[in-house]
């Protein structure tokens, strides 16, 4: 048989690539072109030189000899080629792109049944958009912003809760079905606090509008509260104040009867005043959202009085007779509000705080670096700080991570990881560690703390601990949706807010994912260490790259593949790779951890959108379009799900390699992030547009008023 000319070309190409080719498609193509040219030149020189006739056996042997090694090389190099050509996970990415490019398109593709949300629908040329679906009593209408973009505000209380994982977009009367992820949140008891005599403890579940009260024997009552309770404080032994999205309500602790109410927009944190300076006789201090965030003191009748203004809503608040102390996340500081006001930088935000005595407050932090940040890769050093309110200074530090005898590897830690709740009573300090699933009891003079291990109980990732008057220990596990009452280190009573058997498989998967999110790795670092409750801690840190980078939020990232700053992870589940390789792997072995973690992260609600009147939103969108922003931050997810070279956007930034890949992030909830840009060099959204070169949006020609409109629009997304 005669060897065809194409056979010579392919054979030569295969041989060239096997011997000298790299693991990329360019090498394959170049080898083919080289073979083609060589064979062509040979034929041009001696036209009959390749007219070779072989017996079938000889032809087979020759083919095996040439193509066999090439096939082996292809099999060996295939994973590297797929990775190098960025073909891994391309299905997921194209799926996400298709969902947003298929008009009308809706973003974000997740619907929560417990809270108001804002959606964006891109329906070019349409004049009306409505959101319909099974279970919705009323169809929320979209407000047209211009350029085919509609803003749809959905409130499950007003419109009804969606019953299925699909919505129907009625666009100019025509119905388009779009699949969405429907999230029915499970109960999460948080903010566990005790009454003054420590006979009762209570926690609120924002997701299920519930207040649960327990005593040393167990369940006392579960009361339905106003919309989304965020915090609570016992006014006295029998009355509890609850802060919710609707305001503050005073309830009877045992019956749940509402004794008084005060409507306050966006009440978030609440503390007993304890006679702190400037609170007068007011028994409570509450933090309410807005610009600026405010602290108000509340009288017995819940009448508010101005107390202090803060740059941001505090994560936690505690008051003693000396001062109120507020933990600020964005500022990574605590503000001491006594007779005067002083802000103490910590370098990292306080995760939680508790009063130890009238002059001392304890803070749990992931590091203490009020000056220059510690530059170790993923540097986390969990510790408890002692704040002396008279000296206004951190006077003691107690690192908490340690290794127990069960550890195998050198340097591994497995105890005292991610302190999330503190309870100081007398000389004894109790700390709930979400990262190592335990409560530790620190007694004065004891070399090591007593450990109350939650392993073997249904509880995990504790975020609340309270010692009751008779020595019983109440532990809150939001992820498990339960409170546990421990006696002598053992679980005596379990108080569940819901039956786990009634959870759907998806809900059960998310609960597993939540456990992984809070669980620490053997290096002592958990997802939670930096992504505080799945948000950003607003800290710049070294994550193994060439420079400091701001922590990203993991909320609202569903269907925005690829992930991370450089878009190097095609699926959320793949991010477990970071923990298993870089951070020493998790403490517990668990199959399917990545899938569970992805299910949890996808179902995290994004921060609420900042209100912006329709006219201002339209004006802001006009500026957004004029500046060319939709080229990359495309409607409706405000991302085109791609990446751009750093040199193309920020040529003046010498710290960025010119071909460094920058993921195009979604701008939904961008106002809740910061600092901004890949290296966090823009402290505010406004300063993002100070970049020279007119590359990151054509903003140089925009007036100051237009930039203001643009920033207001972005903050409302």
């Amino acid at each position: 048989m005669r060897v065809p000319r194409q056979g010579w070309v392919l054979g030569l190409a295969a041989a060239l690539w096997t011997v000298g080719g790299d693991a990329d498609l360019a090498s394959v193509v170049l080898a083919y072109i080289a073979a083609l040219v060589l064979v062509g030149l040979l034929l041009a020189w001696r036209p009959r030189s390749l007219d070779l006739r072989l017996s079938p056996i000889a032809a087979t042997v020759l083919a095996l000899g040439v193509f066999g090694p090439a096939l082996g090389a292809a099999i060996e190099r295939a994973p590297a080629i797929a990775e190098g050509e960025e073909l891994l996970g391309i299905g997921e990415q194209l799926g996400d792109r298709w969902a947003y490019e298929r008009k009308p398109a809706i973003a974000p593709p997740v619907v929560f049944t417990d809270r108001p949300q804002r959606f964006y629908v891109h329906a070019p040329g349409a004049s009306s958009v409505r959101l319909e679906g099974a279970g919705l009593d009323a169809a929320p209408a979209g407000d047209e912003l211009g350029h085919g973009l509609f803003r749809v505000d959905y409130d499950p209380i007003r419109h009804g809760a969606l019953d299925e994982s699909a919505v129907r977009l009625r666009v100019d009367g025509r119905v388009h079905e779009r699949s969405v992820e429907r999230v029915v949140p499970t109960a999460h008891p948080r903010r566990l606090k005790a009454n003054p005599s420590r006979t009762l403890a209570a926690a609120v579940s924002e997701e299920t509008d519930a207040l649960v009260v327990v005593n040393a024997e167990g369940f006392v009552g579960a009361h339905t509260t106003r919309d989304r309770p965020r915090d609570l404080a016992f006014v006295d032994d029998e009355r509890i104040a609850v802060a919710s999205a609707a305001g503050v309500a005073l309830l009877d602790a045992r019956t749940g009867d509402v004794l008084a109410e005060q409507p306050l927009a966006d009440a978030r944190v609440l503390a007993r005043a304890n006679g702190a300076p400037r609170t007068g006789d007011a028994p409570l201090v509450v933090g309410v959202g807005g610009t600026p965030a405010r602290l108000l003191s509340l009288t017995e009748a819940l009448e508010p009085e101005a107390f202090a203004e803060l740059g941001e809503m505090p994560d936690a608040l505690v008051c003693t007779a000396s001062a109120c102390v507020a933990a600020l996340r964005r500022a990574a500081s605590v503000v001491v509000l006594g007779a005067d006001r002083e802000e103490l930088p910590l370098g990292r935000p306080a995760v939680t705080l508790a009063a130890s005595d009238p002059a001392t407050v304890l803070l749990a932090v992931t590091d203490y670096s009020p000056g220059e940040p510690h530059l170790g890769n993923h540097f986390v050093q969990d510790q408890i700080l002692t704040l002396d309110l008279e000296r206004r200074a951190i006077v003691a530090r107690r690192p908490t991570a340690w290794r127990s005898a069960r550890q195998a590897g050198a340097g591994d830690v497995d105890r005292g990881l991610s302190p999330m709740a503190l309870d100081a009573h007398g000389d004894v300090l109790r700390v709930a560690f979400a990262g190592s699933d335990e409560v530790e009891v620190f007694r004065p003079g004891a070399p090591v703390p007593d450990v109350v291990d939650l392993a073997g109980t249904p509880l995990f990732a504790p975020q609340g601990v309270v010692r009751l008057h008779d020595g019983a220990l109440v532990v809150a596990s939001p992820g498990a949706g339960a409170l546990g009452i421990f006696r002598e280190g053992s679980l005596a009573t379990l108080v569940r807010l819901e039956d786990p058997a009634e959870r759907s498989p998806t809900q059960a998967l998310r609960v597993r994912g939540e456990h992984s999110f809070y669980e620490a790795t053997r290096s002592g670092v958990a997802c939670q260490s930096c992504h505080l409750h799945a948000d950003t801690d607003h800290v710049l840190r070294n994550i193994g790259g060439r420079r400091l980078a701001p922590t990203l939020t993991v909320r609202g990232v569903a269907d925005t593949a690829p992930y991370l700053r450089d878009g190097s992870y095609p699926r959320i589940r793949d991010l477990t790779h970071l923990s298993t390789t870089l951070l020493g792997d998790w403490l517990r072995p668990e199959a399917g951890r990545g899938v569970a973690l992805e299910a949890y992260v996808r179902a995290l609600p994004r921060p609420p959108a900042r209100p912006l009147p329709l006219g201002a939103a339209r004006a802001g969108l006009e500026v957004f379009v004029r500046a060319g922003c939709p080229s990359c931050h495309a409607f409706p997810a405000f991302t085109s799900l791609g990446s751009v070279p750093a040199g193309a956007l920020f040529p003046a930034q010498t710290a960025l390699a010119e071909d460094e890949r920058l993921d195009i992030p979604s701008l939904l909830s961008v106002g809740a992030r910061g600092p901004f840009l890949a290296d966090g060099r823009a402290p505010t959204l406004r300063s993002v547009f100070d970049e020279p070169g007119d590359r990151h949006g054509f903003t140089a020609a925009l007036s100051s008023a237009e930039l203001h409109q643009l920033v207001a629009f972005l903050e409302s997304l």
Partner: protein
Amino acid sequence: MKAPSRWLPVLALLAIAAGAAFAGSDWTAAAWVGASRASGWVAAALLVAALAASPFGTGMDPRRVKRWRRALGISAALAALVHLAIGLAGPLRDSLATLWTWPSYRAGTLATVILTLLLLTSFPSVVRRLRVRVWKPLHRLAYVAGGLVVLHLLRLPFAPLVGVLVFGAAVGVLLLWRLGEGLRKRRAEARELNEGAHPASR
């Protein structure tokens, strides 16, 4: 009517300019981006048109089909070079390394290199020198270029997925047609050879 190879490239350049003007809000700001995208799509469309000339020209005057195919191919290569030039002068002028380090841009660069090679070997004097035995397989690299363009577009966030899928499907169908046509011709040649050889062997 003048040969299409004379006026078609001019038309392609005008299409690029029109596309850029349409995509960019004005020539001082978004035009670079608009021009880059417009030139890329014009190049892709011309490449498909060049590959489609033979199947659509079946039954027509072969010389006329050849002229059109050549003109479309030349225009596609020129548009690709314009696309590359716009990228180098505009969005990528401070990140030239990405042309080889980013897989999607690398695929586009390779496709442009191939189209340039085909452009350089499209002049009659070169075609004569190369002879048809060399020239033909060389110009089948146009299908490889088509595949590379698909890879180029697939990971570009700015390329509408529908456009990418349509382009990929078009290149795929045309490649299948070319393979089928090659097979059919080979069989016909073998049949002719057999029929010619039969009497002599008797």
